[in-house]
């Protein structure tokens, strides 16, 4: 505990930090990111296990063989019905079928009020196409499930939900079920309800035989289902002999050792894929919306292949197993993990494992702050200490003089003198150190006029304003769409472009206003430390909600924003500006578009497709934020963008005049 109690060693640590902050932050960042990637390595993560003992998936003894025939029979019926009129949504047929089976059946209508005034219905259809064909298998599995559902051992109600318009339909139902008012999805009241929903499984089954099952976990705003539910599905799929994957990437066979490099590569791939979907903050399936309501939910997708090894009965058996296991639950899911990453279906990285490396990465920015903050505080602290010690000593001397009848304690006086001496000494060293450092960083003394909060206040306000505009822009700007006769998605991306370009030019504009035409003079150290603190705060907060989003943002932004500083040399300035533009929210979005469009025949195609994807991504992000209350758009525009703008001002600062 020398660090806490010994002033000398504490000062040494501080001075070390101040002296080597550049090296340290680079080191810490690299250590963090490599540790994070290392988490996918098998010896560094843990095997999944059932935390909730009540699930008892091993005890489920399938009763379904008796209704296998009926599954196939229903499948035929549904196929016939769908063929008779491909346009029909099967709604009425399903309603009648369910009703005839003695199930309480309800129909619910909903309508979408579009958040943007002038959107053609086409876009709505595009984002949520009606896919009657895809649900055929689902329906027959459901119906078979119902036959089974009337067995007396069920302790819970089972709700079978068929929804149109994918996520919007599911959202409409959920809103009506919980009677939560939505501004844009208007629902008819729901007549049939049960109690609190414990878990939801969304089935996406193909028409053909199933080759393997694919799990989708990521929900709205990066929420994940309880790990126990995921384990349950994985275990039951394996029990039925079906292969199961996360985002289409399989576990490597463990025949050549779990810690081989091949295995690591595939684990890392799976983990990054999962993080990729989670980072978007958009639900990866219909299930994603349930998590908002504290309903654990997963999508089980069957991936088709003509000669797939599993037919519909496997899916039916898995569903039965899931329902029977959930039926055993006495309490809602509360054990196991809600925050995790999966490097494979049977390994997991918990929040306790991934937070330290992430913390290291975020720490890089904080260490960098030390160069200003610590020097300033050391400066101030040392002076304060000296003055305080002096006044203390004077006071004591005074009291001694006053209380003359008491024998003066010479030793004590000596002690005080000694301490005064030592502290003065320390303060002196501290001041020296900080001075050294200042000289290191700035070489020259600063003119007093460039200091203070007032110089950076305009920058701060402009950044916030830009963030607000980017956040509110789409809704405001799309109101003028009809006059320009352009698509709403185009309008949104153009408006964002406009705001972004305007934002890029703001240091230039502020230069003009500040009187002396060629200089842009602000207290950039203060600005940078505030920006760094803001960035670290924002990223750590996001990391608690959506680790993947925070990770990717940190991985890209932190190295650039940490190292950015005014420079006298033009080339360095340009490099810094380029790097900053590269990590700006809009170009990160474009990068995402590029990555999702990756295999393209030519570079031009790639760019074009990247742009289209980026446009769609932004549009869907905005839509999600209106319809489902997704946060990604708000985080990017109202949090990350203004912080980035603060950093954007730094390379513009006139190095000669402000240093």
């Amino acid at each position: 505990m020398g660090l806490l109690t010994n002033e000398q060693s504490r000062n040494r640590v501080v001075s070390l930090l101040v002296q080597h902050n550049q090296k340290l932050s680079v080191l810490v960042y690299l250590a963090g990111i490599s540790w994070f990637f290392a988490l996918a390595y098998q010896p560094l993560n843990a095997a999944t296990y059932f935390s909730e003992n009540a699930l008892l998936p091993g005890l489920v003894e399938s009763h379904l063989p008796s209704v296998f025939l009926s599954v196939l029979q229903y499948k035929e019926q549904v196929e016939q019905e769908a063929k008779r009129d491909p346009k029909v949504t099967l709604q009425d047929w399903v309603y009648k079928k369910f009703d005839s089976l003695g199930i309480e059946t309800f129909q619910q209508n909903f309508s979408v009020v579009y958040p943007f005034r002038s959107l053609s219905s086409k876009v709505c259809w595009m984002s949520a196409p009606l896919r009657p064909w895809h649900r055929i298998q689902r329906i027959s599995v459901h119906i078979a499930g119902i036959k089974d559902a009337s067995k007396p051992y069920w302790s819970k109600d089972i709700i079978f939900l068929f929804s149109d318009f994918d996520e919007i339909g599911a959202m409409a139902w959920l809103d009506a079920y919980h009677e939560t008012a939505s501004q844009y999805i208007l629902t008819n009241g729901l007549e049939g309800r049960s109690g609190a929903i414990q878990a939801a499984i969304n089935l996406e089954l193909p028409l053909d035989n199933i080759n393997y099952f694919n799990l989708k976990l990521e929900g709205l705003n990066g929420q994940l289902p309880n790990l126990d539910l995921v384990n349950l599905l994985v275990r039951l799929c394996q029990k039925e002999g079906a292969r199961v994957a996360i985002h289409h990437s399989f576990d490597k066979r463990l025949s050549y050792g779990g810690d081989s490099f091949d295995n690591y590569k595939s684990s890392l791939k799976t983990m990054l894929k999962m993080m990729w979907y989670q980072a978007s903050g958009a639900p990866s399936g219909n299930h994603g919306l349930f998590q908002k309501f504290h309903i654990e939910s997963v999508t089980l997708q069957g991936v088709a292949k003509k000669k797939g090894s599993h037919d519909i009965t496997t899916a039916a058996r898995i569903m039965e197993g899931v329902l029977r296991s959930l039926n055993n639950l006495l309490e809602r899911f509360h054990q196991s993990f809600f925050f995790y990453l999966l490097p494979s279906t049977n390994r997991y990285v918990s929040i306790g494992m991934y937070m330290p490396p992430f913390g290291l990465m975020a720490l890089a920015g904080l260490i960098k702050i030390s160069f200003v903050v610590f020097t300033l505080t050391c400066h101030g602290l040392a002076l304060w200490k000296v003055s305080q010690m002096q006044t203390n000593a004077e006071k004591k001397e005074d009291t001694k003089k006053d209380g003359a009848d008491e024998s003066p304690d010479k030793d004590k006086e000596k002690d005080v003198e000694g301490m005064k001496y030592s502290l003065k000494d320390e303060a002196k060293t501290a001041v020296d150190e900080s001075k050294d450092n200042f000289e290191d960083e700035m070489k020259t003394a600063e003119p007093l006029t460039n200091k203070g909060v007032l110089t950076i206040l305009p920058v701060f306000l402009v950044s916030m304003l830009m963030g607000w505009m980017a956040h509110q822009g789409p809704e405001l700007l799309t109101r003028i769409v009809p006059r320009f006769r352009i698509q709403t998605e185009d309008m949104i991306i153009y408006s964002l472009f406009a705001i972004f370009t305007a934002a890029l030019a703001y240091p230039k504009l502020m230069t003009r206003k500040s009187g002396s035409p060629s200089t842009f003079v602000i207290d950039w150290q203060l600005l940078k430390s505030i920006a760094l603190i803001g960035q670290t705060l924002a990223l750590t907060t996001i990391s608690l909600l959506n680790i993947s989003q925070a990770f990717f943002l940190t991985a890209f932004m932190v190295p650039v924003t940490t190292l950015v500083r005014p420079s006298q040399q033009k080339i360095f300035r340009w490099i810094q500006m380029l790097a900053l533009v590269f990590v700006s929210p809009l170009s990160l979005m474009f990068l995402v578009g590029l990555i999702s469009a990756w295999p393209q025949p030519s570079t031009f195609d790639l760019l074009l497709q990247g742009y289209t994807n980026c446009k769609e991504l932004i549009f869907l992000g905005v839509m999600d934020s209106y319809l489902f209350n997704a946060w990604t758009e708000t985080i990017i525009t109202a949090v990350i963008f203004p912080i980035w703008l603060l950093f954007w001002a730094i390379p513009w600062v006139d190095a000669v005049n402000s240093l």
Partner: protein
Amino acid sequence: MAPSAGYTSIPAFLCLIFVWATTASGTPKDIFTEELFIKPLSRGYVYSHFQFTTKWNASIHDSNTFRHYRLFPKALGEVLAKYGVQELHLSQTQGLWRHKFWGYPVHDAPPGAELWVWFKPTVKDIDRAWTELVNAVSGLFCSSLNFLDSKNTVVPQWSYRPQGTAAPGYSTFSYHVRYGALPREIVCTENLTPWKKLLPCDSKAGLSTLFNAFHFHDASYHSLGLHIRPVCADVDCTEEAIELSQSLSVVTDVISTSHTGTPNWSLRSLFGNHLASTCPVAAKSTIFVELTKNEDSHMYRLTPDPSSTEKVTRGPDQHTYAVYDVQSLMKSGRVLNIAATFRDPPVLLSVEPPPIHVHRYITGYGLDKGGISCLIYNNMVVNQSIIYLDVLPWFTRVFFNSLTVTNNGTRLPFKVHYVPGKDRSRPHQLELSFNLWPHSVTQVSFTFTRAFLKWTEYPPDANHGFYIDSATITAILATSRGYTATPQHSSCLESIMTDNSSRFPVRLHTESLLVSLPTPDFSMPYNVICLACTVVAIAFGSVHNLTTRRFEKLDPSAKKGILTKVKGFLSKLRSKKASPEKQTNNASHPEDTDTSDNQNELKNENSSAKSSS
């Protein structure tokens, strides 16, 4: 007792002789009837209601009444006498009665246990009597009724009026009534056994031989009821009687429990046994099967043929019943297995919603705020006034200002009696009275906020959630559609056959609700203790060490022990090793050594100062 119209003069004469004989022997008092009512419901469900009624011609207010017993159970009588009970209504239910699909039961009951009691006017301290009574009843029926403390007991203002005879003015003020419900109570065989022990024949003879716990608990719904009330001994109501009505209701899903998948049912398929005896002390033993819907469509056929078929007009609606007089059928020495055989292919009864049905649910999500909505459907062409009673536990704090009653967007006026809850001592009680418009849905809704419990107040399965009692809706209908209850004056099902009233009181219990409260992670205290201990151990240890250490000057010339000599030797060795490194350090950082020397000096000074003092 009023014998039905089908009686010939000879049995009536015999009956008279019997009555005379019992009067002559000095105990004319009690009559026991056993009845079974079977009603096929929609979608292949069958509702069976066992009704055992003991009518005891004695006044409940007479202190001498509970001194001599014949058919009336002594265990119960003693409890009634001791705690001054005038009326007692107990139900223990597993499952939810679905009014929309099943109509109305004979006795409506909420999921779990429900107890409501009217005490005699002579009882002074009602709260104390209630507390003692629930403990006694809880012991008598092996249920956790003793948990009905002040936290979930209310005094209903308008609902739960006395069902039997009462002195004028007795029920004007609700001073004497207590109501409590335990929605979480699980009903099982251990509740059935003490309940059936109160029957004169137990389950040894008569209709109660059909009791089969296995079949009951396989059912979709089953409910045990026990109702005691004072009634009129005769038509003129000159004398009082005590009526004990014990009922057991079961709803069986015939299609899924049968192996064939057909809706055919029989006593054997419903209860696992046929009927082979009647209770010898029973005055009557009757089975009724409601055929109302079968009249027109002839969906199924009953075998054997009933003793008689009764058509009863209750209010505007007509009901048809097949009546089996078990005693006369048993005389032939054969067993009775009433069976309904459906036509092939079977046509199931369609759903016909009753005049009023309700649906209540929790709204909102998250652990902060929530709400309760109750949809009340009126399927009649007339206005209907109802009383709504909702009792919420103290930890769901109701916002009274959020209370609204709306119909199709229009706010309805309502009369309200609201007793706000008190933390850990009193529940929130909400009683409303309003009108339902014809053919409409009325919504009662309000919001609440969830309180934090103390960590010892959580049950072991805290994440299961916490139950909210069913709400109760009381109404007096003008129609008897879907109605099965007996008329006011008697609990015997046979009194339905002679019913000519035009008002049909119903009480509907809604779904009980499950809310989750903010629940701590209970492994957290352990983690916190570990962390706190670590921090204390590390920080406290070093600080303590630093602040309490005493520096003492050692006299180098003093005598040394062997141990110190060895230590000294070792430290010498160590310093020899270290010295070359030190020298190089000194060379590179002359200033450092300077300051450290200073520090050393200072330290020495300090220590010498201390030691000298």
